[in-house]
């Protein structure tokens, strides 16, 4: 009896020891890469959309697949879905990572070009990260596929946070963002730039003149505030005034021009049919308000 107890106890101790020693190296060893096929059984939806997407078709990503971003998955796969298994948590889940770490994962590949200024961008400083706007496993719509956006289009992505702009875009005078012919990212690079407010140019005017090159000049006769900043008169995100102007003419012009004769005149209700109030107001005559190259264009009439 005594021998059997000793034997049994010894057996159990040895078994326990073997179990402990068998598990210990497993939990301490570093996970290794096992390939994307190992992910497929549990994450088939993600696997399929990822492999069909832009990332899945890239050489580097295709080689390492899911593990390019999630890290080596041998222990995670070995846990077979058991969340209590220490190996389960060895996979990198971007949803649980600090924003900087998510960005650094993406910047293994996306560090030049559009993303050159990410570290210095305001979005990075305010702890916005890549996955706030991009859906790596698959885009929200066919149109969003090119940039793997998490919303059907770029405007919807930005409006998640910049909600005041949604109301501005609803105004009568607006640029063609509502109609889908433009995108916020046509003017701003959300990954950061060397210019102000993440503009894709060194100044507001240089940006506007990308499309409105007719206003670029330089002109013989310059309109100083126009030359300096288009935003002195326009609100590009939307306005209740014609031409996305920041105010209604003639009062917008009269904020700066109250010289002798007609510029200083108070145009009120009795003047409703005057050509300085009706239709395009001051610019009925001063058509070259952005600058003139005509020898007689000092006051932008020619």
């Amino acid at each position, binding site marked *: 009896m005594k021998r059997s107890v000793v034997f049994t106890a010894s057996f159990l101790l040895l078994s326990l020891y073997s179990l402990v020693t068998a598990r210990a190296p497993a939990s301490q060893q570093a996970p290794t890469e096992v390939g994307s096929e190992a992910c497929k059984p549990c994450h088939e939806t993600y696997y399929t959309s990822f492999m069909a997407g832009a990332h899945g078709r890239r050489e580097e990503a295709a080689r390492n697949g899911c593990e390019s971003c999630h890290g080596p998955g041998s222990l995670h796969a070995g846990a077979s879905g058991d969340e209590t298994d220490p190996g389960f948590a060895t996979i990198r889940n971007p949803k649980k990572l600090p924003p900087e770490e998510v960005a650094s994962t993406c910047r293994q590949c996306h560090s030049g070009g559009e993303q050159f200024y990410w570290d210095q961008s305001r979005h990075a400083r305010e702890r916005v990260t890549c996955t706030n706007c991009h859906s790596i496993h698959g885009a929200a719509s066919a149109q969003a596929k090119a940039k793997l956006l998490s919303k059907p289009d770029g405007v919807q992505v930005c409006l998640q946070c910049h909600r*005041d702009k949604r109301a501005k875009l609803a*105004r009568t005078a607006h640029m063609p963002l509502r109609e889908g012919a433009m995108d916020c990212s046509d003017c701003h690079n959300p990954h950061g730039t060397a210019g102000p407010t993440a503009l894709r140019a060194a100044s507001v005017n240089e940006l506007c003149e990308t499309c409105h090159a007719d206003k670029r000049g330089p002109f013989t006769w310059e309109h100083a505030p126009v030359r300096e900043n288009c935003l002195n008169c326009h609100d590009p995100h939307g306005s209740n005034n014609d031409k996305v102007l920041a105010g209604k003419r003639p009062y917008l012009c009269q904020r700066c021009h109250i010289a002798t004769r007609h510029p200083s005149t108070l145009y009120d209700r009795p003047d409703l049919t005057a050509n300085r109030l009706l239709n395009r107001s001051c610019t009925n005559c001063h058509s070259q308000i952005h600058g003139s190259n005509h020898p007689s264009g000092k*006051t932008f009439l020619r």
Partner: protein
Amino acid sequence: MSQAIVRTLALAGVVALAAPAAVRAEGEVTFGGQAWTQTAREALYQQYRDLPRGGFLESFILREWNGTTGVTLFGANGLKDDQSTSLRAAFGSRLRFDVDYGQIPHLFSLVARSPYSEIAPGVLSLPDTLQRTNQENPGAYVSTMRDLLNSAPGAQLDFRTDVTTARVRSRPAAGWQVEARGTRRMRSGTKPYGMAFGFSNVVEVVEPIDQEMLDGDVIGSYEKGRVRVQADLGASSFENRVNALRVDNPRRSTDRVGGDGPQTGQTDLYPDNQVMRGSVALGLQLPRRTAVSATVGVSEHRQDDDWLPYTINTAILQPDTFPLPAASADAKATILNGDLRLVSRPVEHFTGTLRVNHYKYDNKTTESTFAGQVPIDVSWTVGPFENHAFGHQRTSFGADLDYDVGTRAGVGVTLERNQREHTLREVEKDAENVYGGRVRVRPRDGVVLDGSYRRGDRKLDEFKLEDYEDAAGQLVEQAGLRRYDVADRKRDDATVGVSWLIGDRIEASARYGLLRNDYDDSPLGLQEEKQQTVTTEATLAVNERVNLSGGYGYGLANTDQASRESSGAVLVQSDTTNWGVELEDETVFVFLQADWQASEKLSLSAGYTFSRSDAVYDLSNFKNTAQDLPSVFSRLHDLHLEARYRMMDRYELAARYFFEEYDVTDFANEDVPLLSPVTGSANAVYLGDELQDYRAHRVALLATYRFP
């Protein structure tokens, strides 16, 4: 249209040629038919889009790939004036080729009319008999013109911009990336243009547009270890194929000096110009999680279009009598910009940023002295007049410090100094100090509160009153005027927001923003502007099949400006002619969206958007005689309903209904007559491109086919 077809087919051909031999392919195409009605021919309904009637191709996407080589062709609104087509070809990650083609329409009016004929590009002509009749019998001008305008043909007022972009990106070796891209923007069509022959003789005409913009850039970057370098070399050109606009004066058939002016007037249209540009950027990763970027850019702008003569009015002797100072503007400017930023996270929870940004627009345009001018082709105004090469520069120094207080809160401060210089302005230097703070708190899981405040104080260095004087030293502008772009200014910019995730199903947020510019040192000019916005949004996942979302936005903008009337040639500086405008512009915005996955095959959605703006003009003057202007009001209801039914795996049918209603009251842009005023003596001929109330209904049936 035929060009668009050719381009689309050409792209499809490229795809077919580029397609790998052993390929996998998938795609989707949505097409259908649509009908719509509109109660008035108001252009706003199609301002930036081309709503099809009858059959249309809404969207398509075709993808073929073999391993790491793939080609994607996708597009929308096929063969319509707002179509877009894109091609993406990737050969592994080493070579990528993108082509995009898109059309952006801009419709101004469907009801405009004009009696002018364009007999050559930019030459707008009236019948000689009309000019002769008006010259010989000026007393009958109103009746003659009214008859003519009532039978004037419709005028096309729209233009379209066709944008083609091609981009090649290559990663030839580890760390290297080279990208070349080119863009061609073609703009053609028309827009309204005002041509004056006198204070009471304004003529609005249809300006032809035929412009081409070309842009090309080559960008190279290299990265090794902690160092990144990027260089960009580019060029841009703008060509206007209609350099001048010649417009017949409806009141005259022969030239004269003074009075009704010339038989024909001429104005210059936007001159051709060119830009060369380059930039270099350096990025460094330093120890202690510190990153630095430095960028230097330079560009050279040139414009040397030949000057037109002072006037084409042959009754004014020229050019022998009044020769131009040169043949062309010889306009040029050099832009220099630089940016330096350092971001560091030396210890946990702490982020510091230092930044310097400099921008200089150095206008080197030759300053010429003109003996005089003929501003509206009517009479010679004796000079001399000298053009000014306005330039400017700004330098901004900033520091941001952010600290995470545990895991649930963060605070930050910003200090900034913005220095500006304005060449040849009444204020040549000013500087602004900005102080700001922000806080973000997460008191419990799912709840985030945040707020920020910035205070800016801009002070001008010296005000030069002589800039308000004419050549004889007489003041022509009020001494008390301070123009808001260079005036002393105190700015408050504040935001407060809350977002709340209630369980798994409800997310709500609210935000308030205030931007206030106070020009309290400006006796005349803009005194104050204030913008306040409130936005709220909420989403509710009722269950796995039903989602509801909605939002409300309210905006209120107030401006206050002070002015002074001085109707004579000599400036009167007396408080007794003071006047002012207080403007209140209120905007309301509501949106609602409901999505219901009724069954595995059927889904329904509904969306509604409402926006309303109401602007009130409160005018006042010292004599208390000012009469307020009517309010300007606009309102838009926009409703859409959609039902989608999935048939088998590959087919889907959709039915859509859209309703849109627009109401407008606008003293300037509604009821614009062709001849104005409609009673008494006319002072203007307009195109009549007025805003109109409308109601529109649109129905569409679509089918989507997916393959394989």
